[in-house]
């Protein structure tokens, strides 16, 4: 009996101690506003830049604590889903433009107009203002923009007398010419082209190619256009490219294709980006780290198209409804975009990150960044694509698609487009057969999601 009493007293004491400790800790936490920030720039230089901006912000705002986390693309969306389901979303997160629009249409985002106002609306490039905007409000603000690039070995192209490809046929010819047997064993050891086999990048590429071929992915009634002549041409083009692609390309990830390029196993990279310049400076011999060896071309046009198309990597910051400290998060973003802070972020991958503010892009400090000087040609091609309205986000052919086709996020995730390409290119099915299968799957998905209007 006495023992039971002792146990009861002990349990009571422990409970009181826990409650007391909890109250004290809770009071301490209540004084600090915590802002959770999820971003997808996992490059160590970008992570460091964000950490330094956060440190400066916290010094200037002692009542706000920023918890920044760099996440791989594949991890981000499941994490956002889990956070939304748990009712505990982060204050800020990166997202694909199509994800941002889908979340906005469900009323899950808060506007960032205060941040745009603080930056100065006229200070933001017009192209950027088209992303995740509804009813005149900004529900997403791009962290930095960069377009896809056709990177090629300029020294080898010069040796072979190759010029910039204007059409898909030119590109195939260049790729074949650059597929080389350098050691004379009768087999190619340098392939003309490298393409990632990831779901995301195949989707990006199909979006680009269909736009460059004058087509669309979905009509106004949301019906897929996969059996359209222009899509069949895309699939046939891809099939022809495989003669110059390394075997097993479907198993190559995005970074593998960069490795092929700087590892001198590939002569052209169709789905390159400005961050390639940073990787070249890191991994290729010093004497080759220039545009005489690695340069970029504007992408070619398809047989049914009349202008090139590229993808623009421009994930917006999203401010999630239901998060605890949205106002503090806005303060952080205002601080982030100040020229003196933003330039640190841009500098981390300067050829991939185009500043969204005119003030920074036109500043002497930006133009004096050593990599910007060294790889100016790469930036010019991106600028041309942005100014010429040739650059669109993943699976977006016209900017209106972002608002009128909220199912694009599901189409991307489903892998339907990836499977259509692989069935044609890797499994050897007829393009029409693979396209018909993809058409049926996409129609079913859109019907199931409730967007079919045909």
């Amino acid at each position, binding site marked *: *009996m006495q023992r*039971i009493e002792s*146990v*009861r007293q002990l349990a009571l004491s422990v409970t009181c101690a826990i409650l007391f400790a909890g109250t004290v800790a809770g009071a301490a936490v209540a004084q600090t506003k915590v802002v959770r920030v999820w971003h997808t720039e996992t490059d160590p230089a970008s992570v460091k830049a964000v950490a330094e901006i956060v440190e400066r912000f916290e010094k200037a705002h002692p009542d706000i604590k920023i918890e920044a986390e760099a996440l791989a693309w*594949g991890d981000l*969306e*499941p994490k*956002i*889903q889990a956070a*939304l*389901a748990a009712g505990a979303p982060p204050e800020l997160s990166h997202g694909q433009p199509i994800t941002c629009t*889908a*979340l906005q249409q*469900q009323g*899950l985002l808060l506007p960032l107009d205060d941040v745009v106002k603080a930056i100065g609306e006229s200070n933001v490039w017009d192209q950027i203002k088209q992303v995740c905007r509804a009813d005149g409000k900004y529900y997403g603000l791009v962290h930095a923009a960069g377009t896809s690039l056709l990177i090629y070995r300029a020294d080898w192209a010069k040796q072979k007398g190759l010029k910039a490809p204007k059409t898909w046929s030119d590109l195939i010819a260049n790729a074949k010419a650059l597929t080389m047997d350098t050691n004379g064993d009768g*087999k190619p050891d340098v392939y003309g082209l490298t393409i*990632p*086999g*990831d*779901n*995301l990048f*195949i989707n990006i590429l199909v979006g680009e190619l269909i736009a460059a071929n004058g087509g669309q992915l979905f009509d106004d009634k949301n019906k897929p256009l996969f059996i359209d002549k222009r899509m069949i041409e895309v699939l046939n083009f891809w099939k022809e490219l495989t003669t110059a692609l*390394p*075997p*097993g*390309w*479907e*198993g*190559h*990830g995005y970074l*593998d294709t960069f*490795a*092929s390029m700087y*590892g001198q*196993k590939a002569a052209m990279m169709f789905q390159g980006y400005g961050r390639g310049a940073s990787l070249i400076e890191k991994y290729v011999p010093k004497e080759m780290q220039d545009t005489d060896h690695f340069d970029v071309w504007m992408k070619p046009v398809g047989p049914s198209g009349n202008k090139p198309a590229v993808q623009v990597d421009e994930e917006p910051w999203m401010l999630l409804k239901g998060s605890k400290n949205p106002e503090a998060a806005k303060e952080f973003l205002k601080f982030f975009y100040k020229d003196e802070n933003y330039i640190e972020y841009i500098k981390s991958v300067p050829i991939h990150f185009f500043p969204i503010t005119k003030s920074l892009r036109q500043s002497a400090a930006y133009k004096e960044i050593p990599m910007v000087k060294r790889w100016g040609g790469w930036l010019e091609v991106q600028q041309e694509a942005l100014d010429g309205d040739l650059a669109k986000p993943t699976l977006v052919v016209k900017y209106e698609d972002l608002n009128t086709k909220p199912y694009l*996020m*599901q189409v991307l*995730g*489903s*892998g339907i487009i*990836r*499977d259509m390409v*692989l069935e044609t290119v*890797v*499994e050897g099915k007829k393009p029409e057969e693979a396209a018909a299968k993809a058409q049926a799957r996409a129609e079913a*998905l859109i019907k*199931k*999601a409730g967007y079919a209007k045909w």
Partner: protein
Amino acid sequence: MHSSHRRRTASVQTSQARLGILLLLPAMLLLAGLTLYPVLYGVWLSLHHKHSFFPQQSWAGLENYWFLLADPEFSESVWRGVVYSVSTITLQIIIGVGAALALNQYFPGRSLVRGIVLFPYVIPTVVAVILWKWLLNNQFGLINYGMVMLGLTDEPINWMGRTYIMTSLILISVWQFFPFVVLAVLARLQTIPTELYEAARVDGAGPLSRFLYVTLPQLASVLFIVVLLRTIWMFTKFDTVWLMTQGGGAEKYIRTLPVYAYLRAFHYYEAGTGAAASVVMFLLLVVFAAVYFMMFRREEQL
């Protein structure tokens, strides 16, 4: 006096029982919260149309299950899961038992070798898969380089491409998990009485007969559990399979049932269908376990 003592004893027992329940309650609540609730929530979710991001949901009844039955991707993923599980388990058992038999013999440096054999099982899956992906890379990988140098193949094999990716996955999984079999079997081997082997020798049994008629029957109970556990773990294996491609093109060719369920929930954003696929996976394992128990439980030694 006697009855008052009995009453006091009963009161103490009741009080102790209450305290016992009170002390068990946190653990039971934890179990219910972490195990029972997610399972029931999964079943409930599988009966609804639910977008993974958005809050709306509607009652679907068995629609998600009918959808799975008609979906060729689902049946392909079940088949791939069966191929993957059966191949990896068979190889794990063969290699694991062989290695355990070898490690049960005395030889110099045995303790060190036993430690090294466990290495694949103790390194994190993500490290193991990244390591193997680089070793198997068809442009820069050491394995292809070695094979070409030794003249085993004329040109590098595309281990991560369509044709060989399932083989690569099976080999990596076997490498990673066979030490579990070694651990379990070796522990049992060390407890088999040596008298049994001596008696068999006296009766003229050779090494093969001793293995078949002494060792193997003694290992039966351990192998029963090992096969059961490994089947459950391999059929539901997600991390190794997913990390091989992380959604890359060749993922299509190794899409097993857990990956299919994940894709439905987190890439198609169909939480209800994803949950239904998980429930089906759970039911398949229950059926397997029941049949397995019915077939082998009657054996006296198990």
